[in-house]
């Protein structure tokens, strides 16, 4: 049996849910970021699947989308790590539960 569109989409959906669960449950800021990266890659897989299998008038736009998502994710990760370093310098922790200076 060759894998079809439904297999790829299922993997994509599972990866996305896993990433969402990780990013909502991890206490470490870097862990949250890894969850986000997993979600973005699930989106990429879904987009590639759709442009490969579905009879779409313009399959290239799915591929184009993926390239842009990869680029933006890299930029976002760079900023996230920089901010994590800045927080660590000030607080010596990047545990999001202990970042509690901001309250009423």
């Amino acid at each position: 049996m060759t894998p079809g569109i439904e297999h790829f989409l299922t993997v994509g959906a599972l990866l996305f849910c896993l990433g969402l669960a990780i990013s909502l449950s991890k206490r470490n800021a870097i862990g949250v970021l890894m969850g986000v990266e997993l979600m973005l890659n699930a989106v990429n897989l879904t987009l590639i699947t759709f442009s490969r299998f579905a009879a779409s008038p313009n399959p290239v736009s799915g591929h184009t989308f993926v390239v842009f998502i990869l680029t933006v994710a890299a930029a976002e990760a760079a900023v996230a790590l920089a901010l994590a370093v800045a927080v660590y310098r000030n607080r010596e922790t990047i545990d999001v539960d202990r970042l509690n200076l901001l309250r009423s």
Partner: protein
Amino acid sequence: MNGIDVLGPQISVLVAAGVVLVADALFPGQRRLLPFLALAGLLTAALWTTSWVGRGDYQTVFDGTIVLDRYAVFFQYVFAGVTATVILASIDWVNREGRRQSEYYALVLTVCAGLMLLAGARDLITIFIALELSSIPQYILAGWGKDAKSSEAGLKYLLLGAVASSLLLYGMALLYGVTGTTILPEIAAAIEAGGESYRALLVVAMTLLIAGFGFKMAVVPFQMWVPDVYQGAPTPVAAFLSVGSKAAAFAVAIRVFFEALGADFLSSDWSMIFAVIAAVSMTLGNLMAIVQSDIKRMLGYSSVAQAGNFLVGLAAISVAGEEFILGASGILLFVAAYAFTNLGAFVAVIAISQRINSDRIADYAGMWKTSPFLALGLAFCLVSLTGIPPTVGFWAKLYVFNAAVRADLVWLVVIGVLNSVVSAYYYLGVVRVMFLGEPGTEQRFRASPSIAVALTATAAGVLLFGILPMPLMSAARDAVEVLAR
């Protein structure tokens, strides 16, 4: 070449960002001129936009991914004005901070370019790029301050923002999968042609899109970042995000939901979701704002409540025709009114908090005696946020609520009006403290020239459009009529 002409305003803002960076490196002794260089870039952008209004031939470029119509033009003016006010209000703070001045202005201009691009984006990829172009510099700006609070605010904003944009992207991917295209009008055509059989998938995609945009709009249940980021970020940056990214999210949401997901079997769903979110945002935002003792947190929750008011308009646009025009132009009017009003309030808060070194509402006591100009400006903007005439905030609320009544959402309007009464309690509470409280010190102080210009301009806008709302209303109407066709 035509495409470059259409993108002229965005390009000139980005060029100005580059020029500011280079000028700082070449002439380090002339740092005081950097903000004026940035303002010159924004002026060029506004003039370029005006030249398109004069030429009047609006068009779609880059294979339909970017559109320049009256709708985009309206928001380009709003964003240029918002950014200019933020830059004016930042000058004192940046000078006092003393470091990395050119980078600050360059990042603010980059955000502005992203917001302007978003106004004309008509394609899912372009929307995503523009959204991130405006978001990533905002994450950096939120963490710009030296203290631990600011970097904490930046990190929280980024992590939650990244999760929200992942949700948005998954929604976009599903939408692409069902329709096979990323261009909004083609999506609408594909849904019209046979999308009803994929209804479940479309509803999931729609919900994910609402989550993604809802984060930028700062509505319940995606509001948890708002008070923290507003409190921790430098005040000029908080002013920028409270107006800029919120306005942009509504600009793009009207386009996506009406232009791409306007099919009857979907629009009743998203209209209902927006109505519920609107009611919850208004109520929760107002109730939480009452108990705040920090004015920036209070303005944060108040912006959640105001976003609920915008959503009342968004819930009312599900029917094409006159209802759409009323609702959408109501949102545009509200966006412009809110931009004037909230920026004015923030400008006054920036000046006062720099002087008294505190954001506590209790410390605003007697501000009327120590700084009458700032107190009057802040009080006037708070009155407009409440929605009391003769301010532009009154007309904005009236217009949006009228649209909701026309769309049979009377229950929502009742909740909205009740919430206006609740909001009066905390907005006017600040006014009462400022005018009736006893000042801690008798020492008077003046606002700096740049703050005075920014506050006078915004307050004049609030008053002028409060007395003569017609020009703004007809501009908003003209802007949305291009979408209705």
